[in-house]
């Protein structure tokens, strides 16, 4: 009898717990690519929105890596089973922008549903990257990052270097790496994630070198790659030379999965990767102190390094849902733009604060003073006046083109091509990919 009562009471409790879900809520599916810590943080945001009102329920679903999420969303769209919101990485921007019938532009969505929308509140590089040629923002900025440099202060000290003076230029980085290796403080100078994004695309932006014609692809589908210029060749040449000397260790294609362990294991003293790697770096560097610095530049090329460019992802609204769903999506985006939500996400993950208000909130909270290095990314991406070369890159099928760049980089490392040959081939093969995209989207 007692047992029965207990069962009954659990049943009642369970029924109570499920009661809110049973009421008529409009569900909003949100497909994303954030795993581990980032995924948990993302779910907290969705939960925060769900708790803030009763009409809508955002349901986040993890769909794998960025490319997998994009492919899943496209397949779902073709089968008419698409989610209302999908997180697409910056590389997919060209693909999404070309798919006009599939996308509900965010500026239009907000206007149609009477939600406040003020693009000038966003950080300038963010709006610049995700706007169409008329200056309208097409997707909701969510997680934007930019590459920075992480370095091991303990190793610097052991090598007799000043741990508070990270290398500013590539020349300094080379000398310091040699000192570190010769002193035996670490067995390698530096490693890097994303050879494509960090060591090629951002390198071009920082040194004001074009990556492609027509304003790096912003001007239209007829764009061609031009990243085989003298600065890129010089840098790749150096990377090859440094790899042969052991100063630089290659971390693998794409994101460079082998790079972070090299830094965490104190094998490499310096590590370049997304500012969003910050959380991971801090969690994995319990045995040593980490320093943060902007990416180095060649002082014989420029004395005025430009801003670095964006990575990360935005939220795209897909067509083909009920108006009620879009009303909820618009409200969710408004919630997402709140300085408190933005600042919490930015501070927990290392992604950039998307709005100026979120940045100012962090300043008034004294966050940047208490967490030295946490504003390096913002300063680097907002320094100077952006030029056509530093606004970002926008190419269709960029995932494929990046794979080509990785392959050619590997061919150079293996010694079968010089830097010039590798970059020339990458440009040639990349242009073929651009022409395919142009032909398919005309």
């Amino acid at each position: 009898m007692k047992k029965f009562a207990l069962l009954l009471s659990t049943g009642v409790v369970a029924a109570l717990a499920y009661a809110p879900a049973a009421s008529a809520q409009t569900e909003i599916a949100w497909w994303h690519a954030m795993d581990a810590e980032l995924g948990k943080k993302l779910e907290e945001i969705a939960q925060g929105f769900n708790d803030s009102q009763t009409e809508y329920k955002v349901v986040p679903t993890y769909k794998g890596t960025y490319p997998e999420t994009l492919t899943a969303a496209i397949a779902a769209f073709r089968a008419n089973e698409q989610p209302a919101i999908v997180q697409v990485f910056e590389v997919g921007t060209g693909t999404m922008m070309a798919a006009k019938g599939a996308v509900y532009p965010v500026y239009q969505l907000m206007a149609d549903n009477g939600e406040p929308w003020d693009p000038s509140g966003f950080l300038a590089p963010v709006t610049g990257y995700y706007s169409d040629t008329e200056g309208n923002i097409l997707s909701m900025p969510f997680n934007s990052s930019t590459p920075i440099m992480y370095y091991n202060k303990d190793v610097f000290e052991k090598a007799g270097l000043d741990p508070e003076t990270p290398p500013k230029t590539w020349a300094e980085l080379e000398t310091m790496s040699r000192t570190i290796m010769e002193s035996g403080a670490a067995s390698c100078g530096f490693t890097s994630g994303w050879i494509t994004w960090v060591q090629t695309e951002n390198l071009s932006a920082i040194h004001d070198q074009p990556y492609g014609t027509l304003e790096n692809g912003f001007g239209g589908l007829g764009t061609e790659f031009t990243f085989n210029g003298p600065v890129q060749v010089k840098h790749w040449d150096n990377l090859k030379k440094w790899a042969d000397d052991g100063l630089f260790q290659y971390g693998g294609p794409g994101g460079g999965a082998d790079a972070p362990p090299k830094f965490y294991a104190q094998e490499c003293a310096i590590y370049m990767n997304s500012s969003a790697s910050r959380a991971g770096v801090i969690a994995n560097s319990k045995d040593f102190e980490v320093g943060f610095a902007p990416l180095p530049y060649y002082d014989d090329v420029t004395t005025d390094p430009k801003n670095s460019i964006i990575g990360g992802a935005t939220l795209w609204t897909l067509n083909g849902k009920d108006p009620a769903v879009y009303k909820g999506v618009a409200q969710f985006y408004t919630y997402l733009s709140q300085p408190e939500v933005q600042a919490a996400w930015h501070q927990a993950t290392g992604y950039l604060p998307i709005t100026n208000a979120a940045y100012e909130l962090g300043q008034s909270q004294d966050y940047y003073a208490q967490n030295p290095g946490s504003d390096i990314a913002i300063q680097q991406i907002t320094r100077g006046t952006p030029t056509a070369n530093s606004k970002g890159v926008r190419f269709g099928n960029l995932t494929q083109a990046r794979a080509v760049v990785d392959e050619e980089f590997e061919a150079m490392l293996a010694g079968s091509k010089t830097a010039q040959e590798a970059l020339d081939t990458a440009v040639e093969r990349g242009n073929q990919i651009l022409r395919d995209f142009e032909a398919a989207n005309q």
Partner: protein
Amino acid sequence: MQAKRTIFPNKVLPYVLLVPQLAVTLIFFIWPALQAVKSSFEREDPFGFKTTFVWFENYRRLFAEASYIGSLGRTAVFATSVTVLSMCLSLLLAVAVNRVLRTNRLYTTLLVWPYAVAPVVVGILWWFMFNPTIGIAPYMLRALGVSWNHRVDGVDAMILVIIAASWKQISYNFLFFVAGLQSVPQSLIEAAAIDGAGPFKRFWTIVFPLLSPTTFFLLIVNINYAMFDTFGIIDATTQGGPAQATNILVYKVYSDGFLGLNIGSSSAQSVVLMLIVIALTAIQFRFVERRVQY
């Protein structure tokens, strides 16, 4: 006297009985294959808004592409190596186990285990062991004076995926060889032994020919495995790199279609892959099967 023949008068029943199997084949094999053939003649944007019929443009481009021709060659190397390596090793193990009388059940059980491991997990295991930074294998190889880095060295990468793919398939081959060996009549072997044939002679002249149906079956299965099912292993270890050194046909279909969203080219590639496997199987049935003794 006339031999008794059973006659089924019902004309419909056989077809009704065939329907489930035919339906499965049509829906899951024939229909997708036809879809692939159709889209291999088209150029299409990822979302499927605009589709243009381009005749053989996708194929023409494919065979003009140096990396595709390279991929064909690498697939041949990979498939042959995996098939030969995994079949030889599993035959060796099967023969060894067959000679052990008391504990052969235990060995059989243990040797079959790897088959239960999913290809992706196999890939991760070998990737971990051979990781240039944290793996145990490069560490030991370095002690022997061999520098291992499959991130940069294409040959290292190819060896890695061949080992991983073969390891996974050994269990399967082993199981069939053990079953095959058990059906070889003991009397034949004993007779040969009495006639003075040594173990090697007995194996080559009696056991191996009698095993040929099993070997033939495994040959087809293994080639198909190496060409189609090794996707997970490649994806988890090398992603086709470095510099396309391990970009075999099936992985290229995936990376061009799913990562590159180039559906036309990807479809053309899968049609070519389909034709290759059909041709290989036909050749095997026509020529190799003649030598097989059932």
